[in-house]
């Protein structure tokens, strides 16, 4: 089936390198002795651990509970014993640690009771809840909790288009390609769940045309469903959400908006598949397809348990070949380089690329921008990258925002074509981080200011109350008179008065706080007049 396509501006034809790993079927991943399962494998609040060291867990058992609306559950990828719940290295560009549940496998792979459910018999909110508790998140790499996206929540009356993203536009990565070829029926089953929740007018599946087998498999699986498979030209970054939405529907997601604002919702094919496993099979998300490619002996795709280390996955593909210079999670355009391979695979790990010098750009001196505009030509967000660079470099962040810095999707096209080899994306990330930091500082300063103001008001109020109370306690005429004549000594005088008249305090205190305030206010300014009188 073919429909009209609406090309987006810019983009690149990249060498695909997909042949390296898409020839062989998905292999089951290794069962490591120890799994390090991060509790934050999604966007949003980190899951709350619900197991303690020493607990026995079954495969698929909940170990981290979603905490708040935007959060997702985490499950034990295999059966075994929890040995620790502690910070451990995770695959993140910062190289920092994050809270993980560490499980020693017992090798038995004993499952929890898996309960398939019939989605049509459940209320939609119950279906969403089950997806949330099964840890279903976007597996295209963004790992946003899917249950949230499967709720229109008044965003639009009826969804126009539901898009399934099988574009997989980054070079080297083939996990979605293999999944579509081998498990198209499961993907379509998951898609049905999504259709049940969102009730869209049309369902489109976008796949880049360099994956004819996947297109054919999904076409077959979609027969009779009304879902339409659209082969889109292989042009990076057609798999970017905004780009794919434009490509398939012609609609542009607003600058500060979501595809939902133009009546479109988009999910990755692997997300649909995991929704199917979660509800139709009762299996939460404990594994994902990971492409292991580059300089490894047997590049291919593994169905890897979450929490298995990169080192083990690479070993399962025959280990490193000589000359690996960089270990990249994700693709070569947007993926990030890791310090080491002792980090666990997570729901965001679509690809592990062991890149050698041949695959990487050689180190080249950075020359000044010659304003050639090659970056403008390839920018899929229609930005002026050279102007953004200019302002980011000069730390003119407000000007960078005038040039729509935050519309940048960091796809890397501009850096890729820059003849001066300027790491443009790096400058944009830097500028964004600086702006976020400044905003946070501003918020903090504002908070401190408000707190300070509140404190000053409280102190003033307390002072007033104290004074009022004192005035009330003191004899109505003596107090102001004493205050005036003795200058700085009213406290002493009143203190003396208080000790002299302990009984009076008890008598007058309770019924007159309001009157006391009043007299205090009065006494504040015209006290001299009072004294004179």
């Amino acid at each position, binding site marked *: 089936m073919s429909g009209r396509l609406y090309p987006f501006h810019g983009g690149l034809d*990249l060498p695909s390198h997909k042949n390296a790993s898409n020839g062989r079927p998905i292999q089951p991943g290794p069962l490591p002795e120890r799994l390090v399962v991060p509790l934050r494998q999604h966007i949003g609040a980190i899951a709350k651990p619900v197991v303690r060291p020493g607990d026995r867990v079954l495969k698929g058992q909940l170990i981290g509970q979603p905490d708040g609306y935007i959060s997702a559950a985490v499950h034990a990828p295999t059966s075994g014993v929890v040995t620790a719940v502690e910070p451990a290295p995770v695959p993140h560009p910062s190289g920092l640690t994050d809270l993980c549940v560490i499980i020693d496998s017992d090798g038995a792979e004993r499952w929890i009771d898996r309960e398939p459910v019939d989605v049509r018999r459940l209320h939609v909110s119950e279906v969403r809840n089950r997806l949330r508790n099964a840890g279903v998140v976007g597996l295209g790499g963004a790992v946003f909790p899917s249950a949230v996206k499967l709720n229109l929540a008044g965003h639009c009356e009826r969804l126009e288009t539901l898009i399934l993203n099988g574009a997989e536009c980054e070079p080297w990565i083939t996990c979605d390609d293999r999944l579509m070829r081998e498990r198209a029926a499961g993907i379509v089953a998951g898609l049905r769940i999504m259709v049940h929740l969102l009730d869209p007018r049309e369902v489109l599946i976008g796949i880049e045309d360099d994956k004819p087998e996947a297109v054919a498999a999904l076409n077959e699986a979609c027969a009779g469903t009304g879902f339409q498979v659209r082969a889109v030209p292989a042009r990076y970054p057609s798999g970017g959400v905004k780009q794919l939405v434009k490509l398939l529907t012609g609609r542009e997601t*607003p600058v500060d908006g979501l595809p939902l604002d133009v009546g479109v919702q988009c999910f990755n094919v692997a997300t649909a598949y995991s929704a199917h496993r979660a509800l139709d099979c009762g299996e939460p998300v404990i594994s994902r397809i990971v492409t292991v490619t580059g300089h490894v002996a047997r590049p291919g795709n593994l169905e890897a348990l979450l929490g298995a280390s990169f080192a083990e996955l690479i070993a399962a593909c025959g280990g490193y070949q000589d000359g690996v210079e960089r270990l990249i999670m994700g693709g070569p355009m947007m993926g990030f380089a890791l310090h080491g391979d002792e980090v666990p695979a997570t729901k965001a790990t679509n690809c592990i690329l062991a890149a050698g010098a041949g695959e*990487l*750009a050689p180190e080249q001196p950075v020359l000044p921008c010659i*304003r050639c505009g090659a970056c*403008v030509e390839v920018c899929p967000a229609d930005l*002026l990258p050279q102007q953004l660079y200019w302002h980011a470099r000069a730390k003119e962040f407000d000007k960078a925002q005038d040039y729509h810095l935050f519309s940048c999707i960091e796809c890397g096209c501009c850096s890729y074509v820059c003849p001066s080899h300027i790491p443009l994306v790096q400058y944009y990330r830097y500028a964004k981080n600086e702006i976020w930091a400044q905003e946070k500082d501003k918020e903090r300063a504002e908070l401190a200011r408000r707190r300070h103001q509140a404190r000053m008001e409280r102190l003033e109020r307390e002072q007033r109350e104290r004074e009022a109370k004192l005035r009330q306690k003191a004899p109505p005429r003596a107090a102001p008179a004493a205050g005036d004549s003795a200058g700085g000594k009213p406290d002493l005088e009143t203190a003396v008065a208080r000790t002299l008249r302990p009984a009076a305090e008890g008598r007058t205190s309770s019924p007159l706080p309001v009157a006391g305030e009043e007299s205090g206010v009065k006494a504040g300014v015209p006290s001299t007049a009072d004294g004179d009188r």
Partner: protein
Amino acid sequence: MRFKTVTSPHILRETGVGPVMRRVLYAMLPGLAALIWFFGWGVLVNLLLATAVALLAEAVMLGLRGRPLAPHLGDYSAVVTAWLLAVALPPLAPWWLTVLGVLSAIVLAKHLYGGLGYNPFNPAMVGYVVLLVSFPREMSAWLTPHGLGQEYALTLVETLRVNFGGELPARLSLDALSGATSLDVLRTQLGLGMTVTEVRNSPVFGIVAGYGWEWAALGFLVGGLWLVGTRAAAWQIPLGMLGSLGLIATVFYLIDPAHYAPPWFHLCSGAAIFGAFFIATDPVTASTTPRGRLLYGAGIGILVYIIRGFGGYPDGVAFAVLLMNIAAPTIDLYTQPRVFGARRR
């Protein structure tokens, strides 16, 4: 295992400032060949002298500014500047004229403004204009396009003697060698009240424009189209410039064909083609937005026509380019493309 971490993207296109600039040089070859054929060895001598001086000046300036030599000398930008200027110089220009022009371009217009990428004005055109306003006599001594191997053609040795010693061979006088260009002739004769048709009968004219010149223009057109085709130069600039020049010339020609030269004459004369594809397209000093480039080119075309028709110089590409250089940042500001997802204006 420990690995190096670098931010994405991890792959880059095989490109560079050097390859881009080299492509500009290659694209100039057909036009240069035509120039050498019609105007003799002097063109080549100017070219080589300018290149040598430019590289030397570049190296000295980089050294003074504490910049690494290799990457910047290897970017070929100085050579491009040298060639652009050399093409614009009279073939028998004395050596010091070339040297002075190149130094003005590289030292004054380029490095004093911060070097590659930071110069607001096209260096070659700054060099050219400095020479044009300072040494009008030397700069207007263009040769009559005789063609190599013809009666008046100088040998290489004779050319070098003229360039470096100022000695003309005994058999020839400067008057016999040099002559007004077609734009000069048109300008002066129209000023004397003649019609375009009468002027066209002058022997300096060829098929559509100046004899010899039109072949150089054709050569530069071929190279320029290749340059634009390979995306080494922005297509909007030559389109804008030649489009506006052609359009405005057509309008005047239709109004009064007796006193205004036809559009094809304007397009094929002087530095129009060369300027459109090679000078105005200098990315550093041009507009960078797609729409801005069209406007920028169009502005140059209009200015060229105005200067040619109503100004004090026979050709005006250099002045037009410099004037639009100043306007480029403003044009960029007002021609930003609509960002993806922004409301249509």
